[in-house]
């Protein structure tokens, strides 16, 4: 599955400054691995040592938080859009 991934500013140093990149994978986990293959070093910023998504980073699939779906196991379709958004940006006081 080919999907687009929106990259937050601090991670653009891994993506040659690009705010959106293409990636492939059947699940979010596979997309993360694909990103790592193309942009070495990025996975460590997304996931902790145990492979879990970092506490302060959220991933949205077509505007829905993947925690309301199957988290990193969420399945993807061709043309889906993923957005990596720092958690602290996604809430209110």
């Amino acid at each position, binding site marked *: 599955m080919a999907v687009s991934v929106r990259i*937050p*500013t*601090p991670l653009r140093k891994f993506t040659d400054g690009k705010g959106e990149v293409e990636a492939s994978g059947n699940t979010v986990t596979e997309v993360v691995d694909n990103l790592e293959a193309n942009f070495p070093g990025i996975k460590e910023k997304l996931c902790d040592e145990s492979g879990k998504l*970092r*506490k*302060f*980073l*959220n991933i*949205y699939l077509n*505007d829905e*938080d993947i*925690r*309301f779906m199957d988290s990193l196991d969420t399945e993807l379709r061709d043309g889906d859009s993923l*957005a990596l*958004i*720092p*958690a*602290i*940006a*996604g*809430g*209110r*006081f």
Partner: protein
Amino acid sequence: MNFVKGLKCKECGERYEASLRFYCDECFGPVELKFDLAGAVEALGRGSVDVFSSLSLLPEGFKAGSTPLVRAERLGKRLGIQNLYLKDEGASMLSHSFKDRVVASALGMAKSLGIKTIAAASTGNLANALAVQAVDAGMDAVIFVPEGTDYGKIAQAVASGCRIFEVAGNYDDANRLCSEVQEALGWAVVNGNLKPYYLEGAKSLLFEIMALMEDMPPSAIVAPMGGGGLMRMLKKGLDELKAMGMLKEETALYGAQAAGCSPIVSAVKAGTEDISPVKPDTAIGAIAIGDPPDGAYAARAIMESGGKAEAVLDADAMEMLEFLREDEGISTGGAGAVALAAAASFVKSGDIAGDTPVVVILTDGQSKAAREQARPGNVSKIEANLAAFRAIWEENT
């Protein structure tokens, strides 16, 4: 005087200069301001009004804040709390909520950066607070509210003429859109990239309580929780008072949420800081935040201070509104009512001793939602035409 030392990541400790930065580049954890507390005390005097204003980033001549701390004897008796005090933020003179404080601290930084357009996502109170102060500061405000927001609740924002976007979905959706606009257009957002400054204003609420109760510090402070930022900053304020040698006794922090949206309460009850987001299902819009950005820190604040958290039914909160009006003549919004209902429950369960001083924070004035829940019999809804008026008038005379 400014005693800001800079920003520090709450998670990994990375340090940054004070700027439009709100999360850490290394781990995405939130950054928060660090102050030169000893320098502030030395220059402004321990416990002085000036030191509290400076540490809350409130500008000179700040019109709001200094809200009443009301001894609520009759309500206290009804709820079994002998020394009940209400911090009535509904009396805040600019927009009738504690958001006056946080907007003031955020705008101070925005002004120093020469920002002209300033945005926020809001369930209502923040919209009004920002609109009012942005006019004063000569800035253009842009506000994102969730679909179905009562326009009466954002009357000041509407009257200010600022741009308001009603976003399909709930608050979390409006806020996410706002944060994406911030990222894409480089806007300043009070509860986004200005958040480290925005949050600090909330400490002034705590400082006022502790200064007024210097001789009888509260054993418990009960506050409503939406995004968790207020609770987080109550703890930061307590920690700073302690560091300045101004805390004689421990004050425990107690958090309250509506049962239909209580991810922070659930975490505290499970003894964890891990927040599982929920889809809000409560009529109390001000705290209907399913994915609280400061939830983990709010949970930590409560647990570290020795407090507890409780979720209450909307109906129980609405009953509290009536008690509050009957006993004390005070009207508040649904969030404050949730805190009151939780306070009653903490005393009932023995988590708070009924004979110690307890402060409940009423975060805003009476909300439209609350009025709709308890519409008095002598108020009629009416279409704006003579025929509708006549029909009601003739029916009742």
